[in-house]
């Protein structure tokens, strides 16, 4: 496989794995924990490197995952104590963990080779050359192996524990009473998220992995009210934006991880504007329709009250309506236009009269 194909493959695999692992982060409204975990893997990586005496896949991976879990444990312990909410606990724990990693690196910089920038922002272009070797055997890029393991574990986890996770997310009290330990499920999920974050850091960097963990699931949530569809859609968005971001980055010769995260950002903003029912534009339109419906009803009732009375001529003048109903001229115009479009009234020489359909509505 050419290095470029491998870059695309790694990006797609990172997108797929993170997007799946992120679904329950979004459903449980704990997306910020992903941020905490992704930063906290740094001291774990350093510890792994130091223990193994150099960059080595296994120890670094295990160290980073343990650091991620330690972070979650610290956040949970703090936020269950009185007086500290979860967001504050996250804000306290991950900078501490991260600082520990930074200090550790700077103190032992001579002994190990660990590129902080690559950890934080990733370097996909180099990933294909970072081969996993056992003796003389070249097993291919480490990222593929790591992401493959993370994907396998995530998919298996969601497959066999989907029912339990959904129950514990929706109603933890019923989960507990049904004999499913919600804390155990929570920490298993966090272990999956930690493994995924660590696996993704070689591809797109620990920090930008957060974008892949959160954005695809959040976008999917805007478009669907069904959990199985949300999983599929999130995976599709994750893969799609990773591939698109990589292609654009190669085209313009800029940072791949930077462009993937940018694509995700743009995708989320467009989704939150245009998604049916949940999108801002859709809601604004729905709100206007409701307001228009009420206004038309008010107008029809007003007209039918004065129909066939001595004041009918005066009351049906547009200028009078503007004054009496307290509407702006523009809004009055919109309401009258919409009402005549619906066949409820006719407009004639600055005067509106109800049609038979309008009269019927006014009486009902």
């Amino acid at each position, binding site marked *: 496989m050419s290095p470029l194909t491998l870059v695309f493959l790694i990006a797609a695999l990172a997108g797929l794995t993170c997007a799946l692992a992120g679904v329950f982060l979004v459903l449980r409204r704990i997306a910020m924990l992903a941020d905490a975990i992704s930063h906290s893997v740094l001291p774990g990586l350093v510890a792994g490197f130091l223990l193994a005496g150099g960059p080595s896949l296994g120890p670094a991976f295990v160290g980073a995952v343990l650091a991620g879990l330690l972070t979650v444990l610290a956040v949970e312990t703090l936020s269950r104590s009185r007086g500290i909410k979860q967001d504050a606990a996250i804000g306290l724990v991950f900078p501490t963990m991260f600082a520990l990693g930074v200090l550790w690196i700077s103190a032992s910089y001579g002994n190990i080779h660990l590129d902080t920038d690559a950890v934080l922002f990733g370097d996909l272009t180099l990933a294909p050359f970072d081969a996993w070797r056992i003796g003389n055997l070249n097993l291919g890029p480490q990222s593929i192996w790591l992401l493959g393991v993370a994907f396998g574990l995530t998919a298996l986890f969601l497959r*066999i524990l989907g*029912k339990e996770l959904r129950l514990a*997310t929706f*109603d933890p*009290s*019923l989960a507990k*009473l049904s*004999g499913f330990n919600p804390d155990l499920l929570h920490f298993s999920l966090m272990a999956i998220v930690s493994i995924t974050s660590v696996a993704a850091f070689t591809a797109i960097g620990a920090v930008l992995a957060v974008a892949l963990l959160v954005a695809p699931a959040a976008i999917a*949530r805007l478009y669907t009210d*069904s959990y199985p569809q949300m999983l599929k859609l999130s995976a599709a968005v994750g893969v799609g934006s990773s591939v698109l971001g990589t292609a654009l980055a190669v085209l313009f010769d800029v940072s791949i991880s930077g462009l993937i995260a940018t694509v995700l950002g743009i995708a989320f903003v467009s989704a939150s504007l245009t998604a049916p029912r949940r999108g801002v534009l859709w809601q604004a339109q729905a709100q206007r329709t409701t307001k228009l419906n009420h206004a038309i009803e008010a107008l029809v009732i007003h007209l039918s009250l004065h129909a066939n009375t001595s004041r009918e001529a005066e009351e049906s003048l547009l200028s009078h309506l503007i004054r009496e109903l307290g509407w702006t001229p523009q809004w009055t115009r919109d309401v009258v236009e919409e009402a005549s479009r619906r066949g409820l009234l006719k407009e004639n020489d600055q005067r509106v009269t109800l049609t038979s359909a309008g009269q019927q509505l006014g009486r009902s």
Partner: protein
Amino acid sequence: MTAVSIRDLTVTYSEKPVLWDIDLDWSMGSLTAVVGPNGAGKSTLVKAALGLIPVAAGTALFLGQPLDQARGKVAYVPQRSAVDWDFPTDVLDVTLMGTYGSLGWFRRPGAGERSRAMAALEQVGMADLAHRQINELSGGQQQRTFLARALVQGADVTILDEPFTGVDAVTEQKMIEVFRSLRDAGKAVIAVHHDLDSVPTIFDEVTLLNTRLIAHGSVAEVFVEEHLRATYGGTLAHIARREKDL
């Protein structure tokens, strides 16, 4: 037969006890209301008995056994506000969650579970809405979904936290019907309840609570001014009036 037997139950959040040394037996074949002023510890009592919050001291037995051994026989309906109604799922799926306990880890609900869930939805008048998203439900429909979920568990003891709060008249009537059919089948229904006026018309027994247990027994014996005054203090008339207005 005793449905729930609570002994020496004490719960503290900070220094001050929320519940103080409660001894209580709720009976089978009865509709029981747990009543008391705001902050009396009504919800805390049922949550502590069910092991959902830590207790400082005390035990609770369900049908003579610790909860671990009586799991399948006890259903709990939390306050509606306790869950996220924007969760992406529908009415049938929430009802099916009532079968998860008997399924255990890893096994998924099948056709049998599905038909039991539909029967439960039928019983609460929600069968037509089985595929409705839960974020589109009214408060009363949410409560009936929760009740269907409890029914599908086939429990002998059903404990509900404020089931009548914020529901429409149709739902209230449906729920009372279901509660009575459970009672007539010899099962126990225990509900944390808010509205003093409706206690005598709905319930058979009443537990009066204000941090301590004030009184427990049949509505005729216990739901009398002397005990109510002891529960609510001098503010009884005011509270009764206010709760009626709500």
